[in-house]
């Protein structure tokens, strides 16, 4: 079980032209900025290269590519280097922007494309499950966000009201 091997596999898949761009999100993405928190899977957000003459993008080449290299499909996951990996399309304006502005991080000589801390926090706010709110609080408590950049993302993607509600719920001293 080796998450670095997952990253190397995705890099190779990108180099081979199967995906146009990728970025690591979710708990694994957050680990690039925060303390590690146990997670059971890896979320990889991808942009596919459209096939010539078609406006429809198909994920099948991605699965075929990985299966040919020993990965196994199990439910909605594909198991790479012992890790269940979920490939997610960048299907909202926020995710498109997050993917476009993702950053390269060095993992012992292996480059890894990762969402910025501010985009990870905004996506957590938008997704809004209990564990997402906990992650957003981690980012805030760790002082890991650039406030101006974060507020800009919230404003561009209609998340200002959700942020105010979050502030009232979790960051206000008032009862």
């Amino acid at each position, binding site marked *: *079980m080796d*998450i670095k091997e997952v990253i190397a596999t995705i890099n190779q898949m990108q180099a081979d032209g199967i995906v146009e761009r990728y970025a690591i999100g979710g708990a694994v993405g957050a680990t690039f900025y925060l303390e*590690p928190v*146990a*997670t*059971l*899977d890896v979320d990889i957000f991808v942009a596919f290269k459209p096939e010539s003459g078609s406006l429809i993008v198909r994920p099948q080449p991605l699965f075929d590519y990985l299966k040919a290299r020993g990965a196994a499909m199990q439910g909605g996951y594909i198991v790479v280097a*012992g890790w269940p990996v979920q490939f997610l399309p960048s299907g909202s304006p926020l995710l498109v922007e997050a993917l476009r502005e993702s950053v390269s991080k060095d993992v*012992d000589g292996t480059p890894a494309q990762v969402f910025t801390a501010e985009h990870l926090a905004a996506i957590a706010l938008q997704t809004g499950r209990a564990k997402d709110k906990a992650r957003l609080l981690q980012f805030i408590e*760790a002082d890991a966000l650039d406030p101006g950049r974060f507020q800009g993302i919230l404003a561009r993607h209609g998340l200002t009201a959700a942020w105010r509600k979050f502030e009232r719920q979790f960051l206000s001293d008032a009862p």
Partner: protein
Amino acid sequence: MSFDLQKMLESKRALRRNLAARPVAEKLRMLDALRERELAIRRNAAPPDSNYLREEPPPCRTKSQ
């Protein structure tokens, strides 16, 4: 050793800061280890025929399989 709650909380915050500041490669190795441990706990937490309500983990492949 002290039972001062404020000191305990500050100690926890310091530990989290320390962990967050470790090199990324080291933190990712911690994720590998955390996942191994989480799966081991889940495998042994409850017998398969129990009536406990539990979340099913995503599929996994261990080295022995």
